[in-house]
Structure formats: structure tokens, C-alpha cells
């Protein structure tokens, strides 16, 4: 891919990044930090490529170390974020409260929540 296309993608990604988290509440700062942390673990893809093309043993050793580190970042990051967000289950009862008042859409909301709750308890 040529430089200009990469630059275009980079600049657009900057704007998406700014836009996506611009209005986050302080309640979710910690999980957001942790979630973003998990995402940069995708360096694993780079580490795999380097390890897969290594010919010298020491290059391979360093590359495999990079694979281990990147995997720890990626897997650990998503697991830790999931555990943090699990704690917010109790919060979901709140939007359920006004639901009966609305009438028709009421049953739909709690239903979706039970689904999420079963997912949460696995």
C-alpha cells in the first residue's frame, strides 16, 4: 500500500478515535482504558508475522518472546475488562424500572436484559 493511502487511513483513524470516546463518563474511564489497552495487544499479528519469517534462531527467540508478551496483553486485557464490566450488571436494573410505564415496549427491555444476564453468568 502506498504512503498516501496509509496516511489517509491513519488520519481518519485519529478522528474516529477522538470521536468514539469524546463523551465518555468518568464512571467508565477505567474499563475504557483497559479496553483500549486490550486492543493494542493486536500487535500480536505483527509478532506472529515476524516469528513466522524468522530464519536465525535468535531472531526466532526474540520474536517468540514478542508473541508471548503480545498475547498476554491481548488476552489478559480483554479478560480483565470483561470482569470489570461484569460488575455493572446491577446497574442494568435501572433502565428496567421506568420500562413498565411505557407499556408496549416494556416487556422487550427486560427480556433483552435477561438474555444479557444469562450471558453474564455463563
Amino acid at each position, binding site marked *: *500500500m502506498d504512503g498516501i493511502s*496509509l496516511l489517509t487511513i*491513519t488520519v481518519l*483513524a485519529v478522528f*474516529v*478515535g477522538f470521536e468514539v*470516546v*469524546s463523551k*465518555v463518563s468518568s*464512571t467508565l*474511564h*477505567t474499563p*475504557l*482504558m*483497559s*479496553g483500549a*489497552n*486490550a*486492543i*493494542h*495487544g*493486536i*500487535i*500480536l*499479528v*505483527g509478532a*506472529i*508475522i*515476524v516469528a*513466522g*519469517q524468522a*530464519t536465525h534462531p535468535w531472531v526466532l527467540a*526474540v520474536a*517468540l518472546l*514478542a*508473541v*508471548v*508478551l*503480545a*498475547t*498476554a*496483553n491481548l*488476552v*489478559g*486485557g*480483554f*479478560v*480483565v*475488562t*470483561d*470482569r*470489570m*464490566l461484569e*460488575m*455493572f*450488571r*446491577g*446497574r442494568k436494573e435501572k433502565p428496567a424500572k421506568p420500562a413498565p410505564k411505557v407499556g408496549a415496549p416494556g416487556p422487550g427491555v427486560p427480556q433483552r436484559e435477561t438474555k*444479557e444476564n444469562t450471558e*453474564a453468568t455463563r
Partner: protein
Amino acid sequence: MILLDPNVTALLYLAAAVFFILALKGLNSPRTARRGNLIGAFGALVAVVTVFFSTRLDNVPLILGAIAVGSGVAAPVARRVKMTQMPQLVALFNGVGGGAAALVALLELPHAEDAWVRVAVVFTLLVGAVSFAGSAVTFAKLQELMTTRPVVFPGLPVLMGAVLLAAVGAAAAVVMGGSLVLALLLLLLGLVAGVLLVLPVGGADVPIVISLLNAFTGLAVAASGLVLGNVLLVVAGTLVGASGTILTRAMAAAMGRSVAGILFGAFRGSSTAGSTVMSDRPVRSSSPEDVAVLLGYAQHVIIVPGYGLAVAQGQHTAAELAQALESRGIRVDFAIHPVAGRMPGHMNVLLAEANVPYESLKEMGEINSEFRTADVALVVGANDVVNPAAKTTAGSPIYGMPILEVADARQVVFLKRSMRPGFAGIENDLMFEPQTTLLFGDAKESLTKVLGAVKAL
């Protein structure tokens, strides 16, 4: 092995990038956050599977083994870590990510033929190394393997300047000639710079630095994507870099600090003032029974939870105490400072875990005017976030940080383990005021005793 068509590969990477954007987007609201995170994890899975089927790779069994080792170590740790130790684990994961990016760049250097690719290489090396070493120091600080106070020594700014200058020199040489030895030197200089950058940061500012280093790692990953010509790494890294920057600024704003002030404030020297002095001024301490009487005959009680509550795992007992008081017709609110706990938003996570109803959790802006009319403010294991020095003492490490105005309440009860100063390493004058009572002990035990005494009233 069947190799995927390059176009299919590109589309799969695009899908993974979209999943990452959706993951960050989902984290905007507590309702969608968990699903968002799972979508992000799925995106990562798609990307990792794709790379095995799109590139000709040797050593596949070894790579799979390394992946198994990495997951085998990280997943159980992440599963088992206590909620209170979450911040240091996030720091650790961030550090290893930065380290991985630096190693990838180092190994790609011999293949980097264009000068601009080598620019991306040196950037990744340096920033990845800074992030790795800096995160290691923040981990040590949060785990209390070392002092949480700012570490400053004479000549630190000069040393930092020299390291950066040497790093710029080495970087320029690597871009020009591609020397591997100089690249290793650059890696080393990056590690030193990372340590020097984080050492002077103290106390409650550490989580903000974690967020900043998180953004750094994102940028390193983006740059390594340029080196490898991999669009997914460019997009994901840039996303994290940009969102991390915003998040860092939002956190700093929540504490009334500037990012530059956090990083370089200690260089100005005054901020450690008084941190080692522990005065022997008299305080009033009392028994759980006295505290129970005070609470049981109040009309409005505001509980101010802090890190001490979190460490003692006392959030469930605090929730029970609130219920017991409410059943006596007393209004109980929880006042949550944005940085209560050890990271912004951390306390909300803990209290949500204890099923404290959402309506009782009041944010600082909402609750501050109510302290004036509150009968009792019960401070459980918090210190810095209620310290009036933030408003009155210029030069204090927490000066300018918005605080909970506990001092306005008619009575203030501190549940504290000891007179040891809080995370910021400074004493709280509020503890010596006439309206203040202290109840010493582990937060959970004290709360249990107070709860028992309230029930016996």
C-alpha cells in the same frame, strides 16, 4: 496450508478494525459496554486467525506454543486478580504490549529498506521501550513495591535531557544507516527514559500516567503497522493512541490537573513539601458504639468511600450499613469522587459489585452542596479526595484537585487504619478539626462493628 486471497485478507482485517471501533463505542455506556468488549475480543480472534491463513509462515507450532504460554499466563491472572489490584494489572498488560511492539520493530529493522520505514522503526522502538519501562515503574508504585511518592533527585532534568538527546542522536543514526547495534542502544535509552519519566510522578497521578502510556503503546503499534505494511495494526494502534489521549486529558481534568503538570510538576520541587512530616497533633478517636449513635440519630448521612474500603473488601458491609440506616428512616448517600479507589471510576465498579442502588451513588458535582446540610459524613478509607489542602495549600501535591467538601458536614467520622498519610503522601488537616472523630481499624471490621451497634440501637 491454504492461503487466502489478499483481497479477502484485507476485508477480514477491515472487519476486525470495525469490531475494534464498535468495542470502544460500546464502552461509552454501562449498558452496552460488556457486549462491546466481547465484540472487540471477537475482532482480535478474527485478525489472529486471518494472519495464519494469509501469510506464509514457518515455525507455526512454536508460534502456537508461544500463544498458548501467553494466554496460559495472562488469562488466569486476569481472572483471579482482586478488583482493587486492577490498575496495576492494566499497567502490566500495557507494558508488555509496548515491549512486544518494540521487539517487533527491532526484528524488522534489517528488512526496512526505505528511510521512512526506518523512521517508523525508531519511533516504535523508542515509544515501545518508554511504555514498557514506564509501565513497569507504575506497576511497582501501585503494587507498593516502591514508594508511591514522587521520586526526584538533583540532576534528574539534566539526566533526562541527556538521555533524550542521546536517543535523538541514535535514532537519527539508525534512520540513516540501519545499524542494529545503535538500534539496541536506542532501545536501552528508551527504557531509561521510561523510568525517568514516571519516577517523579506521585500518588493519585499514577493512573493518569498509565492512561498516557497506554496511548503511547497505541502509537507504537500504529507505527509498527507502518513498518509491516499492515493496515489493521495502523488502524487499531491509531484508535488507541487517539482515544487514549482523550481519556488521559479527561482524567487529568477530573483531577484539576494538566498532563504536563503531572509529568513535570515534581521537577519544580515544591510538591514533596511536608510529605515526610507526620505531626503528633492530638486527634479525637472514638468507639464503634459512639459512631453508631451519631449515625443512628442523624437525618442525613453521606458515606464517602475510598481506597481503604476497597482494599478491605468492605463495599458489601458499607452497603448493608446504608440499608440499616435507611430502615431507620435516615437518608443515606454515597459520595463518589471521580478518582476514588485507585483509578477514575474504580469506586463505581466496586459499589456496583455490592449492589448499591444506582440512585444512591452521587457524583462529586451533585453531592458537594449537600454536605452543608448533612449531619454526618462517614469517610471510609478515603483521604486525599477529602483533603482541604487541595483548595488551601498551594504547592501541595494535590493542590487544585477538586475535592469532596466533607469539611462542611456537621460531624465528620473517619474510618482509618492508622494516621498514615494517603496515597499522595500528605497529612489531612481535617482529621485534627473539632468536628472530626476517628475510628481506627480495618475498614471492613470497623464497618461490621458499627453495623452491629446500629442494629442494637
